[in-house]
């Protein structure tokens, strides 16, 4: 099927089979491998991207269902994402870094909806992204730091 996607402000016209997940299309067809697939079945959050502003799991999203959509990944440029990337670095909010792109996109969605989250709100808002390295305390600090540094 024909598919038009805007990924990080770049337009893509793709020919995609209907059963292919958005994650696969982003990683393969658009060659943006920052988005990770750790489970492929909606249980880890590594594949989180923004589709029309909503943080969703790209492994359980059909690419063809996103025709005309605006997709944002970790490779995108944006002030809030940049602030979060700096905060994740400063707080050592990752170890292997495999979960990090997904964490960042969830954090973007969280701070867009709630620019000054409490600790409990950060923990709830980030609970859909597993980190097996256990960077959680630093992730919480990083999200709080990025929120605090808002202009």
């Amino acid at each position: 099927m024909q598919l038009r996607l805007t990924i990080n402000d770049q337009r893509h016209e793709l020919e995609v089979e209907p059963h292919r997940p958005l994650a696969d299309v982003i990683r393969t067809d658009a060659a943006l491998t920052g988005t990770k697939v750790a489970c492929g079945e909606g249980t880890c959050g590594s594949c989180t991207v923004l589709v029309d502003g909503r943080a969703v799991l790209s492994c359980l999203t059909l690419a063809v269902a996103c025709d005309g959509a605006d997709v944002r990944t970790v490779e995108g440029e944006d002030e809030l994402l940049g602030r979060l990337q700096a905060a994740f670095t400063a707080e050592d909010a990752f170890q292997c870094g495999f979960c990090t792109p997904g964490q960042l996109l969830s954090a973007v969605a969280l701070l867009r909806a709630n620019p000054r989250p409490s600790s409990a709100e950060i923990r709830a808002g980030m609970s859909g992204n597993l980190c097996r390295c256990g960077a959680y305390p630093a992730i919480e600090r990083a999200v709080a730091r990025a929120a605090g540094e808002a202009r």
Partner: protein
Amino acid sequence: MARLVKTQVEMEGRYEERWTLVEEDVTPEYADGEELAVVGHPHTRVSAAARVTGGARFISDIDLPGMVHAAVLRSPHANARVASLDRAAAAALPGVRAVIGPGDVPERDGRPVLTDAPAYAGGAVAAVAADTPDQAERALEALAPGWEPLAFVVDLDEGLARQEFTEDPEETSRGDVDAALAGAAAVIEAEYRTPTQIQTPLEPHCAVAAWDAGGLTVWSSTQGIFAARDELARAFGLEPDDVRVVCEYMGGGFGGKQGCGPEGYMAAELARRAGRPVRLVYTRRDEHTTAGYRAPTVQTYRIGADADGKLVGVEGSAVIGVGVHGWVFPVLNPAEALYECAHVRSMVLPVKLNLGFSNAFRAPGVMEGTFGFEQALDELAEELGIDPLEIRLRNPAAIEQASGKPYTSKHLEACQRRVAELAGWKERDALRSDGRVRRGMGLASQIWWGGGGPPAHATVRLGKTARPTLVCGFQDIGTGTMTASAVVVAEALGVPVGHVRVQAGDTARSGYGPTSGGSMTLASVAPAVRTAAHDVRTQLLDLAADMFEIAASDLVLADGHVSSRDGTLRHEITEITSKLGNSSLVGHGSRGPNPDGMRVNTFGCQAAQIAVDTLTGAVTVEKVWAVHDVGRIVNPMGAMSQVTGGVLQAVGFALSEERVVDPTTGTVVNAGLEDYKVPTIADTPEIVCEFVDSPDPHLALGIKGLGEPPIIPTAAAIGNAFAHATGVRVRQAPFTPRRVLEALAG
């Protein structure tokens, strides 16, 4: 001049005498009490930019021209024979480039990688490579295997009853335990059970293999590029240097990615036959069925003490569910070595089961053994009416108990006292109540190895821009070895950490570096890095001395400048290096052996505060205090992250992680992250962490390892806290709502 010496080498508690090439490098030690400008101060990761922007290319991201995709046919049966396999049908499908089956892949550790007699559900039978993942899936279906299911045993108790072992049960003892226990003032007997815990790296096991005229290149999500290289060379009959193993970024290992896994063998064989690069990525299900795990145990202890709480006898046995095969890890080491005791007997029974192989998972054996032993010790303390902290302080081991050798350094008691102070141990009873939610505090201690050792090599180059490059043979699996190494270089050369480029994770680029395991990477690598960097430093200072006509010994390097001690002279380092043109200063270093006749161990103590909802069975770990004795801390920021990670994996072990195997079909029923529950950010306790930052006087740079220690005592501390909170001991992890409600119901 280099020479070969026989030295003791340790890996995860196994000691081996090995010939080791020792170069005449004596590690340039930091002076006692020397104020270090970079080492010991917090630093963010050198790879941070790549990891937060999506620029880091992980193994599962690697895409080569012409690359095709692999899929593996796995047995759905707990034990079976493959009666038929239609390879021709699979090979005839569109896009299919190679089909391999039993016998087609070189053996791994003397065992087939693909077999027609898979002895567990998930055992690999055949593999295919095709242009797209979908085509590979279709090819698997076309193989239409004919299965002949066979009888199986997956239950640990049943396996023990059947007495089928992967290795002979082994008994070790010192002294006369029976007599000692007969004379004890108090003896407790207890049985503890621990679950199968899956490493669950977020990047599954994966490999990309490609052949060319020069040989084989494998990008492997591995903790040991050199181990992987050697395995592959042996398997495929190649010279070690005809195999190149690359691992720049990988998504977690936690012990389960040592060397080259079956995925690398399969990818290499498929690539050879397909004549194209092949990528093979395990599914999440594979991670839970065929990629290894911390083996489940049943531990039984008999521990006796005199009226003062001095241990007189310790007897332990551990039944370990090893699976079809696997290393037998030292589950009873804590019982044998954590405290002083003259009379000890231990028995290990490694049971064979129709389940995938077990392997290392962060502090293998010792972590689960500590869960049992450190709780049993609390039971003894309670029996004697002695405070749990006190009984530990009354039994310090002055020398290593099994070998009778002295430690290079030991600060366990300092850790115990400090944790008690931080946690408010004395007032812990104030947490308790009779209400619905009960709070309590417990603590537990830890012993582990982790001294590192040879061989490890490093090269440092400094060129005209004064931005040093470190070339070293390790892989950074997320533990921060890259950053810590850059810190060591920056200290020696007086340049910012961010100016150090670290090239690692490629066997073609460097000399040997160790596997990331056993908490030995940094302790092995850092001295080599230091020596190499110091070599460059000496050369640089000599050049400066010539240029500025001053004695090299009167010069110091710091903040990007070379200055005279009296402060009269100060020049940017680039003033010197700019003169180098296209030459560079090159320094080499290698890791020397640890002192013979001594034991290197790391120690620590943790306390946990938990809350138990007695009506829902929900357990919340509210706070964990961790103090560890791991020698010199090179990068406190990275070290804290290691502690946090270990504690959280132990929280999962204690509360929610448990692989469940169906008794009737012998298959794993929670083979995924939905039913196998690892902690989320919402499960995270507040973690307070300190180090006894005391360089080990006998080890190069005073560094011990830190990877495993923090995971070891947490679960036992949680167990002890549970007993303190409720007065009930749940001797089986994890403490799920079901187990808690059942235990509290009596």
